[in-house]
C-alpha cells in the first residue's frame, strides 16, 4: 500500500468518524431542544425532521401574517366534511347548548367548558388566512380565546410537551407542541367575521393554528389533553395525519 493511499484512507476514516459523531451530537441536541417531530421515523422522516427543526429554530415566536378587514374573503369557503354523526346532529339541534370542551391531562385543574363560558373570557380576534394543503386559501376574521389563556387557567404542568386535540367526529385528532400551544395566535375559535362560527367552518368550536396548514385547525372540537408523551395516542405519531400519510408538522 502506497503512502498516499494510506493517508487518503486515514483522512477518509477521520472524516467519516467526525461526520458520524457530529450527527450523533446533532441528534442529541435536537432531542434536548425539542426539534424531533413525533413522526420522525420512516422514509420521509429525515425531511420531516429537517423541516420541523428548522422551523422551530426560525419561527418559535414569529407571528402569522394578519390582514386588513378589506382583505377578508367575501365568501369563506366551507369545504366538504364527512356526514355528521348522530351525536353531532343532536348538539346541532340543541344549538350547542350542551356542547362541552374538556381540557385535562397534565393540568392542575381539569375543566369542562361550555361555549358560553369560552365566550365570557376576554374576546380576541385575528384576521388570518386559512391555507389548505390542496392549494386553495381564504382570509377570515377569527374570534375566540387564545389556547394559552385556557392552559394558564387550568394550570398546565411545565413539563408538558404537547397538547392533543380531538373533534367530536371520529378519527379526527391532532396535536401541537408547546411553542404552538402558547403562541398568541393559537385560538379556540367560536366566531367568524364577528358572527357565530358556522358549522360549515367548524362551529361551534374550531382550533385555529394560522402558522400551519388548514388540516391542523381541527373542527368541532370537544377534547383537549395536555401531555408529555406523544406515544400514548393512536400509533404514536402525534396525530392521525401521519397515519394517513400527511405530516404531523404542517408549517412546511
Amino acid at each position, binding site marked *: 500500500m502506497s503512502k498516499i493511499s494510506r493517508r487518503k484512507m486515514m483522512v477518509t476514516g477521520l472524516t467519516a468518524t467526525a461526520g458520524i459523531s457530529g450527527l450523533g451530537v446533532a441528534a442529541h441536541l435536537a432531542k434536548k431542544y425539542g426539534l424531533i417531530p413525533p413522526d420522525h421515523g420512516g422514509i420521509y422522516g429525515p*425531511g420531516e425532521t429537517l423541516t420541523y427543526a428548522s422551523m422551530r429554530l426560525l419561527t418559535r415566536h*414569529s407571528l402569522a*401574517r394578519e390582514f386588513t378587514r378589506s382583505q377578508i374573503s367575501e365568501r369563506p369557503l366551507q369545504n366538504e366534511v364527512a356526514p355528521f354523526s348522530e351525536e353531532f346532529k343532536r348538539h346541532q339541534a340543541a344549538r350547542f347548548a350542551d356542547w362541552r370542551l374538556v381540557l385535562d391531562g397534565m393540568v392542575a385543574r381539569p375543566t369542562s367548558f361550555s361555549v358560553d363560558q369560552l365566550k365570557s373570557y376576554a374576546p380576541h380576534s385575528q384576521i388570518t388566512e386559512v391555507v389548505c394543503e390542496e*392549494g386553495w386559501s381564504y382570509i377570515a376574521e377569527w374570534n375566540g380565546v387564545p389556547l394559552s389563556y385556557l392552559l394558564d387557567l387550568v394550570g398546565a404542568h411545565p413539563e408538558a410537551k404537547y397538547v392533543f386535540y380531538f373533534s367530536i367526529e371520529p378519527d379526527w385528532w391532532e396535536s401541537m407542541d408547546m411553542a404552538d400551544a402558547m403562541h398568541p395566535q393559537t385560538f379556540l375559535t367560536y366566531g367568524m367575521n364577528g358572527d357565530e362560527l358556522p358549522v360549515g367552518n367548524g362551529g361551534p368550536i374550531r382550533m385555529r393554528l394560522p402558522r400551519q396548514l388548514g388540516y391542523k385547525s381541527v373542527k368541532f372540537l370537544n377534547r383537549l389533553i395536555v401531555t408529555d408523551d406523544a406515544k400514548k395516542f393512536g400509533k404514536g405519531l402525534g396525530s392521525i395525519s401521519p397515519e394517513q400519510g400527511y*405530516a404531523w408538522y404542517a408549517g412546511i
Partner: protein
Amino acid sequence: MSTMKSEPIPLETPAPVSRDLVSEAAVTPRHSLLVRTTHWIITIAFFALVLTGAEIIVSHPRFYWGETGNVLTTPLFKIPIPASRNLVPTGYGYVLPDQNGWSRALHFQSAWLLVLMGVLYVIGGIASGHLRRDLLPGKGDLSWRRLIDVVSHHLRIAPNPEEHWSYNILQRLSYLFVVFVLFPLVIWTGLAMSPAFDSAIPATVNLLGGRQSARTLHFIVSIALVLFLMIHVVMVWREGFKTRMRAMITGKAADRKERK
C-alpha cells in the same frame, strides 16, 4: 446556410487535437467529482419534485393571482384535468385517486436534498474555480459574432469538437440562468407557500404579490425548468449521448475515435 459569414469549424477534417491533448483529456476529467455528484443527486431530486408536484396539482388544478383563491373565486387559469378531490368542479364526473400524502412528503424531502446539493455545488464551484472557469463567459465570448457562430452550429446539428473540453457560450449562459435565476426562483416561490416561513419572513410571500401568486409562479418556473431539462437532454443526445453520459458519470472526456 452556406452564406453564413461566420467561420465554420471544419467538420470533415479531424480537429487539430494532438495525441498529447487526448491523453491529457483521459486523465483530466471533463467534469469534477463535485459536479458529477451534485448533478446526479439533483437530477434524482428534480424528477421526484416534478412527479410529486404534478400529483399535488391534481388535488387542485386551478391557479390564481393575489393573496387568496379557491373554488368560489375566479382562477387565472385552469389545467383541464380531473381533480383528486370532490371540492373542485372540473367538469369530469369522477375524481382521480388522491396521492397528496406521500407526494407532499417526497416533495419536501427532495426539495431539502436539492437545496443542500445546490448549496454544495455553488460553494464548491466557487472554491474550485469551476464557476469562474467553466460557467462565466470567457473573454470575447459575449460577442454577437460568437453567439451567432454557436447558434449556427446548433442549427446545423453539428457537433463541435471544441466543446469536448469546455462549455460553449450558449451552454454557459443557460447553465448560469438555471443555477442562479430559475432554481433560486423556484425555491423562493416554494418557500413563500410555507405558512411558517412566511411568519418568520413575511416579505418572502408579500414581494411576490400574495400566496396564490407564489403558487402560480412556482408552477410557471417549474415548467421553465422542465423545458430546460428537455432541451438539455436533446443537446446531450445530439452531441453523442454515450460519450456525454460517460463524461458526466466517470468524468472522462472521450477522444475523437470513441465518439464515432
